[in-house]
């Protein structure tokens, strides 16, 4: 059976179609609204898995492409996935049913609106990952904002309005300048089509003076850096995360932050290679500050959800660092870390949400000794925390390790500084776990809390399986990324820049080894290092 030529369109708009179905239901028919939303999102996940079957891992080009005229001659409906966006699409379709399931009981008001928002966000996020036309990309990019704004503002906690407004104004400010840059780029290139622009650049028909390139890079990067968020643009994130309902946090941390890192990888690097190289140093410094600062601030939080929010600042710092190391290993690690972070931090927020459903507070001091009344929930919590702090052989380890190794190849100092973040993550997560779960039950109310329900166990087991699977089966992922990552690196270190490509050939075989020996990457790397000099 050949692959459906409209597969990507189907995947992108299936959630929107189910929104239409939801809108036809009576708004007080909560049971069926939930069921249909869940069924639609599961169907969406199943359909998106078809991508894996038809995907060729040796092909660095975009696959499943669709290309149709849309507005005028310049704007096209151009979709496609490569090894980078493939897994991000899957992450999105994987996390959405989880988010729906975790809102099953906690969302009681305006249930229809909630699931409609969730599914609209899904369409918009997938759209961002599969768009190859800058205009189309921007449309989806902005479309993610409004439903998330409603989600935080309508179903969030006490300071939800403040958080929602802060979230949307911050992101809009970044993206509007990106829009100007996109238009400016169009003025130069005469098209919004990303592959076309790149081939124009490759053939030398399109080039920018250094100052202009830097400005354009800045406009794109600002939009993405706010979304990531990169220190010091992160201040919207703790508020948005803390105030959002659980599903909102899961989607926000799980996928939406990756829109930023994905954007950097997809647009900033290949479109403005020279500026990217010039700015690599300062950006890496910001990323490292983010790693350490995020970790330190997380350590001193008294609010459990805020703590998890700050871990995102730290973990995404790793991703940005990996991207700006410009070698295959580090970028593969960065992409892998995006997926890991989506699963692990998503799972952490799910756990926090389950606690919140029981006690309606995020204060750490309100908890303590929870392992006694809730052994199952708390063991899963520990497991997730361990995955988040990158314990081998769980998923977090692979990502962080690839990033650190790759970065080390080109910049020893960066890697050494960043490694401290890995240590700090152990401190804040384990300490938080200790305060929440271990010891005597300090608050009377906590003694009678029910353990995880069937629904919650389903969620937790799914996440745990994903964590283990991604920890031991990383070759399945990295193998499919490699060609596209090399492609990006090639575009980034394009003809003009000859100073850095030395790092690339060194890094490739290492990634290869990690691929063959996933369970012992340390040994593989050490062996590699012994051999090479």
């Amino acid at each position, binding site marked *: 059976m050949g692959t459906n030529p409209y597969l990507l369109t189907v995947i992108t708009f299936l959630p929107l179609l189910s929104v239409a179905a939801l809108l036809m239901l009576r*708004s007080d028919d909560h049971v069926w609204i939930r069921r249909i939303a869940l069924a639609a999102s599961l169907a969406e996940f199943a359909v998106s898995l078809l991508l894996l079957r038809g995907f060729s891992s040796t092909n660095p080009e975009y696959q499943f492409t669709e290309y149709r005229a*849309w*507005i*005028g001659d310049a704007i096209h409906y151009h979709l496609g996935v490569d090894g980078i966006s493939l897994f991000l699409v899957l992450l999105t379709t994987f996390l959405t049913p989880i988010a729906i399931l975790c809102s099953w009981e906690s969302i009681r008001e*305006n249930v229809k609106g909630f699931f409609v928002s969730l599914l609209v966000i899904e369409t918009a996020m997938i759209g961002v990952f599969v768009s190859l036309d800058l*205009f189309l990309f*921007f*449309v*989806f990019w*902005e*479309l993610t*904002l*409004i439903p998330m*704004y*409603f989600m935080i*503002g*309508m179903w969030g906690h006490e300071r*939800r*309005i403040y958080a*929602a*407004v802060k979230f*949307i*104004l911050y992101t*809009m*400010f970044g993206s*509007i*300048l990106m*829009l*100007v840059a996109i*238009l*400016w780029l*169009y*003025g*130069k290139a005469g098209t919004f089509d990303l592959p076309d622009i790149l081939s124009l650049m490759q053939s030398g028909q399109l080039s920018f003076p250094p100052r202009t390139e830097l400005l354009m890079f800045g406009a794109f990067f600002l939009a993405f850096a706010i979304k990531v968020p990169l220190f010091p643009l992160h201040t919207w994130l703790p508020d948005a995360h803390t105030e959002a309902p659980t599903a909102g946090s899961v989607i926000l941390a799980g996928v939406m932050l990756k829109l930023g890192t994905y954007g950097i990888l997809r647009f900033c690097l290949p479109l403005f290679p020279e500026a990217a190289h010039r700015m690599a140093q300062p950006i890496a410094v910001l990323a490292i500050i983010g790693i350490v600062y995020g970790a330190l601030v997380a350590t001193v939080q008294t609010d459990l959800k805020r703590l998890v929010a700050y871990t995102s600042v730290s973990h995404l710092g790793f991703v940005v660092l990996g991207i700006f190391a410009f070698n295959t290993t580090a970028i593969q690690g960065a992409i892998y870390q995006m997926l890991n972070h989506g699963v692990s931090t998503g799972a952490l927020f799910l756990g926090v949400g389950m606690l919140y459903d029981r006690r309606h507070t995020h204060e750490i001091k309100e908890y303590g000794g929870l392992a006694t009344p809730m052994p199952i929930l708390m063991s899963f919590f520990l497991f997730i925390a361990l995955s988040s702090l990158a314990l081998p052989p769980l998923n977090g380890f692979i990502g962080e390790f690839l990033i650190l190794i790759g970065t080390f190849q080109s910049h020893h100092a960066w890697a050494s500084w960043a490694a401290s973040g890995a240590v700090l993550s152990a401190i804040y997560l384990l300490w938080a776990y200790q305060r929440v779960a271990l010891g005597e039950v300090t608050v009377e109310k906590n003694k009678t809390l029910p353990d995880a329900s069937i629904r919650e166990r389903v969620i937790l087991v799914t996440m745990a399986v994903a964590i283990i699977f991604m920890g031991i089966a990383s070759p399945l992922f990295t193998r499919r990324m490699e060609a596209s990552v090399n492609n990006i690196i090639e575009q980034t270190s394009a003809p003009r820049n000859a100073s850095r490509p030395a790092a690339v050939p060194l890094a490739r075989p290492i990634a290869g080894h990690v691929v063959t020996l996933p369970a012992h990457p340390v040994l593989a790397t050490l062996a590699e290092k012994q051999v090479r000099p």
Partner: protein
Amino acid sequence: MNPFVGDQLANLHRLAPEVVLSVFGILVMIADPFVGAARKRVLGWVAFAGAVLALASVHIANHFPGPAYSDLIRVDSFSMFAHVIILVAVALAILGSLDYLDQQHIQRGEYYALVLFAAAGMGILAGANELVTAFVGLEMSSIASYVLVGFRRRSPASNEASLKYFLLGSFATAFFLYGVAMIYGATGTTRIDAVQAALEKIITADQHEPALAVLSLALIFVGLGFKVVVAPFQVYAPDVYEGAPTPVTALLASAPKAATFALMIRIFYVAFSPLTGLWFWLICVVAVLTMLVGNLAALVQTNVKRMLAYSSIAHAGYILVAFAASTSLGVAAVLFYLAAYIFMKVGAFLIVTHLGQQDEKRVSIQDYSGLASKQPVVAACFSLFLLSLLGLPATGGFLGKFFAFQSALIVQRRSLTLLVVIAAINSVIGAYYYLRVIITMYFQAPSRDYTPSRVAPAVAIALAIAAAGTLYLGILPSRVLDLAQAAADSLFSH
């Protein structure tokens, strides 16, 4: 057939929309005394039929392109595009007025007649190729609107608005007339294309711009700037928009703006095209001022009508960004923007009309709290219009801004790039006040003391059209964009 008669017939066809509007206006006036006070609504439907027929007759006029009445009026794609925009806005405003006038107990025939006469004036503005004809159009639409603004006779705010609008408006049209006199002095003609030719000749002969023409440019800009509401001539607008009956505000904020922008394009791009170097800077500076004044003032408004008034000032600023591009692409962008703008703006004001209640008591933003739980569809429609005004993708407002910015950036001129950056930052400032209304509607608890009345069928139709238009222009703009481009090209092809 006698060639003279044939010529006159063709001219009549070229003026078909204005003829239809005037005939229906007179019909409404004549019928008014014969219709009982309880059944005045019928006149509204007659007026609506007139607007729709006028819209259809644009098609007739379109078959007779060319100059009419010794080239006083031009029938080209440009004028036709503007006509459609104006007439759609007028039709929507009439639909919104039917139940509003009942509610305020001011259901009268002359209201609809005045709306139709104003529309005819605007049509003339859009097609005028001669400055005195343009002045007649300007006065026709202005004088009718002065009366319409004061139509809530028992309301002091409405009276004040009417007087203010009348006094300042008279000043502005006087400025325009002075400008026309000056240009006649400088070139010896008032025909727009003849002015262009004469100016070019003078400039090549003297090697500098004639002082009279420059003065005329400034005076005409004051007159038209007042009508399209740009800073620093914006001071009257919030008061007038607030005091006027809301459907009239919907009309004022949309149709005259489109008509005047059309005239302004014709005057600046054709007559004053030899002076482009001068007015380019004028437009840039005014655009920045207008956007800043509109957006910053809108931030602190508590009255929805005032907020939307300032928002429409800001939008005039965005339109000027495309205007400043001084290319045919820029003209197309202005036209597309106007098309998108009337749907979202009229739509937004119709929501305010619907929620206003008797004596327009409910027009503060706080009155909208929790609207989403009382009338979810109304709240969703209003959100759509607000998000479109904000410029969110998949709405007409976004593409309007997009094409405006695009047309300015493609010139690759540093001052225009800077202008676009300022406009972009402005649209983020604007996001705050639009979102604030959405916050009130969706995130705040409903106020208990007030349940909005049911949406009247006429209003529902108008809202559906406005919402559909906003989405259509946001998702499938190709067709309208092509028409706008053809319209812009027709302007330069003479």
